[in-house]
């Protein structure tokens, strides 16, 4: 089932007198292809959860339309949309066992959709097996670990065979180790069921690792939509570039003069077809090459060994971040004695952004 969002907008009226209305989601259009896993990504308050709740039907859009396939579901109450929702803190009913929790949505079906008791039980066991909790069916939620609760919540959302599965910050309540494991689990379940799945997260790594597509949002406005790798390699603006990637991108103040990009007084790289102007320069940590004759000079602070790679922590007066962090293969010998390190830059790991609008400036090498 593809999901189409057409100029979706949500405005929360400001209750206090004279206060301005809050635009949580502003003119969001997007077509989510059938059977894909899509991550809505952004910092808190960017409107990603509001978008999810509108798709689910728990919140009414102020404008725009939502289609599931060809059906306009904009004004439909959630129970008629055929959606499954997994809440951030799971919202498992504490007084019901795992089995009762999963059965509950089925017991609500009415009329022609009504199932026999055996059928309900069969479906429950099936979906419990799918998420691998079939040995926990008689426990109460309070007797489960966070990861197990998460699986129960997913099972409860899936048991109705929804057309669309929605997950609100599915991993945020789990510890780091479980998070890795669970995100693979979500990917597996999504691929096995083939249900169009939309999830919300503020963790870019989470979104990048499992999504077919990601949508980066900021203050209610969509910044960029695309495959994770494409968005990472080709960010539309400085916000997207900064939001994706760990360690985060290094940002410098720079200037283009006569087709040459300068960071401080260092002529870093030739950039053709860019008019002379002040720019913000983003360089991915993996975009630095240790080079004794490289153009970019940095003052070295230290080296962090991370096993396969090492991370060089340095400073540069033009840097907008407190430190300049580069990641290079551990095979390189780093000489810290001189106090200065010199880099040359991989051209496709360097992005130019407009000094004020922060929009991307294309250039040719």
């Amino acid at each position, binding site marked *: 089932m593809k999901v189409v969002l057409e100029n979706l907008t949500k405005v929360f009226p400001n209750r206090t007198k004279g206060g301005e209305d809050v635009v949580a989601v502003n003119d969001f259009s997007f077509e989510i292809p059938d059977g894909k896993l899509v991550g809505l990504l952004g910092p808190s308050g960017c409107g990603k959860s509001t978008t999810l709740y509108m798709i689910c039907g*728990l919140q009414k859009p102020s404008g725009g339309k939502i289609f599931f396939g060809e059906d306009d579901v904009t004004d439909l109450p959630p*129970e008629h949309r055929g959606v499954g929702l997994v*809440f951030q803190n799971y919202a498992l009913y*504490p007084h019901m066992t795992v089995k009762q929790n999963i059965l509950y*949505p089925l017991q*609500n079906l009415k009329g022609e959709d009504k199932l026999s008791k055996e059928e309900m039980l069969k479906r429950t066991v099936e979906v419990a097996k799918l998420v691998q909790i079939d040995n926990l069916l008689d426990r109460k939620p309070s007797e489960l670990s966070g990861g197990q609760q998460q699986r129960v919540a997913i099972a409860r959302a899936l048991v109705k065979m929804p057309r669309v599965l929605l997950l609100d910050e599915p991993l945020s309540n789990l510890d780091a180790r479980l998070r890795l494991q669970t995100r693979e689990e979500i990917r597996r379940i999504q691929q096995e069921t083939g249900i169009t799945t939309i999830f919300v997260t503020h963790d870019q790594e989470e979104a990048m690792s499992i999504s077919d597509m990601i949508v980066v949002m900021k203050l209610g406005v969509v910044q960029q939509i695309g495959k994770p790798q494409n968005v990472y390699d080709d960010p539309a603006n400085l916000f997207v570039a900064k939001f994706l990637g760990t360690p985060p991108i290094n940002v410098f103040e720079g200037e283009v003069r006569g087709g040459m990009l300068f960071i401080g007084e260092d002529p870093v790289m030739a950039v053709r077809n860019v008019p002379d102007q002040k720019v913000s320069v983003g360089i991915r940590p993996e975009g630095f090459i240790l080079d004794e004759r490289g153009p970019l000079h940095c003052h070295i602070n230290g080296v962090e060994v991370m096993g396969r790679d090492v991370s060089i922590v340095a400073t540069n007066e033009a840097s907008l971040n407190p430190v300049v962090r580069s990641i290079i293969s551990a095979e390189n010998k780093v000489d810290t004695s001189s106090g200065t390190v010199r880099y040359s830059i991989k051209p496709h790991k360097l992005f130019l952004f407009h000094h004020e609008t922060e929009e991307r400036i294309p250039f040719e090498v």
Partner: protein
Amino acid sequence: MVESKKQWKAWLYLAPALVLLAIFTVWPIFNTVRMAFLENYSGLKAAGGETFAFGIGNFKKVLEYKKFVNCLKTTALLCVATVPISTLLALLISVALNSIKPLQRLLQTIFFLPYVTNSIAIGMVFAAMFNIVGSFHGTQNEIIATAGIVNNVIEFFGGTAVNWINSGSSYAANITVMIIYIVWNALPFKILILLGGLQSINKQYYDAAKVDGSTRSRILWRITVPLLSPMLAYVIITGFIGGFKEYTSIVGIFGATMGPPDDGGRLNTMVGFIYDALSTNSQGRASAAALILFGIILVVTLINLAVSKKNTHY
């Protein structure tokens, strides 16, 4: 040095409370038990130097006493009828209140109003509402015939007027009036507690239920009530305890005679029995009755706790 000084100071601070508690709380516990087990104990006779034998005669006498059995019956009847009715009504009102926005605060205030009333004073208002002035099935030359507003309403809807509390009224009619009054009186506290409980339930459970397509009544019985079960257990237990100590609301409506004019004492309760025994200087019997009351309350509370432990799911 500092330590011992502190000890001394603490006991100084505690002294007034402890002295008063010793006289008016701790001593009565022992003394009541003592009096209950002294045959036919009477304060007046004790003051005259009489001594009493140890025994369980007081308890026997109380239980054999027909009046006491009647009191027990009335008390239990009022409890069993009012607690479920008021709990259910309070639940429905709280759920309804919790689901609205406009007028919520106003209605909440109105529903709390009966709490801050004097149960004797408002009992008199209820008496006026149920009372028939003059003989209702009256003789022809009778002019005065106010059937009471409740009967007026009943007749307005095509029913027949009932003799609720006057001479010649039935026990069933009397009990009905008491049930209505006690429920009216019990609602505010229960609504306050249940509404507080409802407001503390995580809204996500309701969102989840909505996505799952629950109907309103299913949400109420399958989700709200179980999640509210600790508060429900609390209002039910306090309701039973209060119910077994029912006394002043009956005084409010029927006066200190505890019954309609032609049958005083008909609606007497356990507490009423204790005070009656006290006023005839039968402290032994009063003590025995008080201990029985304590025992009943204890047992009912324990049963309630056991049941609610089974049904309070988390």
